């Protein structure tokens, strides 16, 4: 194909269109925003009106009080991630977006499980919690609350394990994610 800067002709047949419309995998977007009122509404509203679905969303402060971090996960099988990030970039309060590469990212989610547990079952649940490195944070006669931290996969695996015991309630924070190594996320 003709190199730029030369007069070598360029064959139109060889031109490739942008193809990454659907990636087919989960994307973790780490977004730095100005800490101003209404920013979250702008992001949520953008997703709603463009028909994008947010899988999880977390918001929290960063080391700089004027800047917050929004971590959200989006299914790349359903949505063109490229279009999602470009639209997000158009929001004036959005400072930086990083589509984190799974291999170079540490992602964690915290979940609390309230499970029916009386007598025999309690021991079994504590064992499962230990395998998942979960923590028992509350026990009553009829229920137990277990805290689990980890990747989404791990939390979902834990959910599958405890559901048969009678899952009364489950709460999840959604993922936060940080890039590996010295460089900033």
């Amino acid at each position, binding site marked *: 194909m003709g190199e730029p800067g030369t*007069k070598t002709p360029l064959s139109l047949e060889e031109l490739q269109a942008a193809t990454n419309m659907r990636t087919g995998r989960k994307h973790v977007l780490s977004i730095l925003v*100005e800490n101003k009122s209404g920013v979250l509404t702008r992001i949520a509203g953008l997703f709603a009106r463009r028909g994008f679905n947010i899988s999880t969303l977390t918001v929290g402060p960063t080391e700089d009080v004027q800047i917050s971090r929004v971590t959200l996960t989006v299914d790349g099988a359903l949505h063109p991630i490229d279009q999602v990030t470009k639209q997000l*970039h158009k929001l*004036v309060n*959005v*400072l930086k977006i990083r589509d984190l590469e799974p291999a170079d990212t540490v992602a964690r989610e915290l979940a609390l499980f309230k499970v029916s547990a009386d007598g025999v079952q309690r021991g079994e649940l504590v064992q499962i919690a230990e395998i998942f490195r979960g923590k028992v944070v509350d026990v009553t006669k009829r229920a137990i609350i277990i805290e689990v931290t980890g990747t989404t996969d791990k939390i979902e695996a834990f959910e599958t394990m405890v559901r048969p015991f009678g899952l009364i309630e489950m709460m999840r924070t959604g993922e936060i994610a940080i890039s590996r190594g010295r460089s900033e996320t």
Partner: protein
Amino acid sequence: MRAVDALMECLKAEGVDVVFGLPGGANLPTYDAFVNGGIRHILVRHEAGGGHAAEGYAKATGKVGVAFATSGPGATNLITPICDAMMDSVPVVFITGQVRTELLGTDGFQEADTIGITMPVVKHSFMIIDPQEIPRAIHEAFHIASTGRPGPVLVDIPQDLSRAEIDYEPVGDVRLPGYQPRVEGNQKQIRQAAKALASAQRPVIYAGGGVVNANASQELTAFATSDRFPVTCTLMGLGAFPAPHEQWLGMLGMHGTRAANYAMDEADLICAVGARFDDRITGKLSEFAPRAKFIHIDVDPAEISKNVPAHIPIVGDAKHVLAKLVEEYRALEADPARLDAWWQRIEGWKTKYPLGYEDSSDSEIKPQFMVRALYEATGGEAIITSDVGQHQMWAAQYYDFPAPRRWINSGGLGTMGFGLPAAMGAAVGEPERLVCCIAGDGSVQMNAQELATCAQNNIPIKVFIMNNGYLGMVRQWQELFWDGKYSHVDMGEFPDFVKLAEAYGVTAMRFTDKNTLVQDMKDAIAIDGPVLVDVRVTREENTYPMIPAGSAAREMVG
């Protein structure tokens, strides 16, 4: 200094010479500041009229339009103009009053969550919570509205904050770390585009409103004529390339010419500039330009590959990118003769399928004839605004726009009632130029109240109502696609537009004879001040040619 007085200073610093607005309780302090503020204010009769006037002003002059409204209903009446400005990328700053901060969130009198309601349809908005922030917010609003892809920005100011005393210091900079629109295109990509163009056997330039917004009309023409590239423009781009011209194919899309649509269909390379592949252009997306590769130049990266994947994306301002592209293209010394066969094919379509209509054999005025008559009466030199519907399409088809910013209409949102107030704004912005509105009899009633504004301020717009007594485009669709069953499209002979206009203090007349139409129009235009003309046209005439919604270019009818 009161915050509102500082607001006036900021507007002057931004070069604002006119504001369109309507006062109310929540912006009383602002209106007090207008008394000695040194800024012209035009009192409109409905906030929507003010918003569209600000759009018309912006589109005609290229400067930022400004519209004011009070809280609650004043602000909600602005929603349509705000959304319209968003869809058509019009730089307008909207400044609304808000209830006192102590009442916020209490459902106070005339309280509406203006920021919340407008959020989906603004480029950005500022809620003032500290009066000291007002000057900075105003300047940032103007900066955001006018740079990158232009658009509407709203500033909502609670009444108590607007009257607060602040230490005003002129603001000389903007601090928007999250907003850095890209102006220069990537040089390597531009080179690649030039090479692709040099290789293309069947190229088409497809230009949109972005070229007008970027004031890149000259660059577009230089680019097109650097070889014999055929050019077509979208509804919003008309005038960006001077029509008529031997390389001009006419408008493309749903009511475009066959030459333009067929050329897109057979092209091997389409160079889109400041256009966004709207459904009115592409028709059935899967069958749109199936043989083409795409160069897409746009200042908004989100438009690139949104609807049609681009092969050579170039993010940047059309003016800069096109200037560089011409340079790169010239250096390649491509052989213009390679386009001979392509031009033969295009000329074939142009000859076989010219725009046309069957004229009446009596004195009846065909709507297409009316547009041509206005073209003649104005020498093609007027700024034309329009509403939305059949008359809009006929105006686009039959008035050859020789320059940009002469054609002002509502494309993306398709807002009926846009034309009259937009003409008002354009006439205020360009007082030396003739401004005519080609209105629909249905549309014009949606903002007819602004005739009073024109009369009171002697804004000399000439409104030509293309009166067929129908909501014509809806009637056409019912005829073609709903078995000819007309449902609520007949508007009869109501109102009597001549009496209506006269009641508003506007000179009015009615034309029914095609034989004298051009001269009659000239006479109407020669009258000082605003004039409204009720032009009676054929009742049931269809806008052709047409690509039915969701069909491909080849399925064009009429």
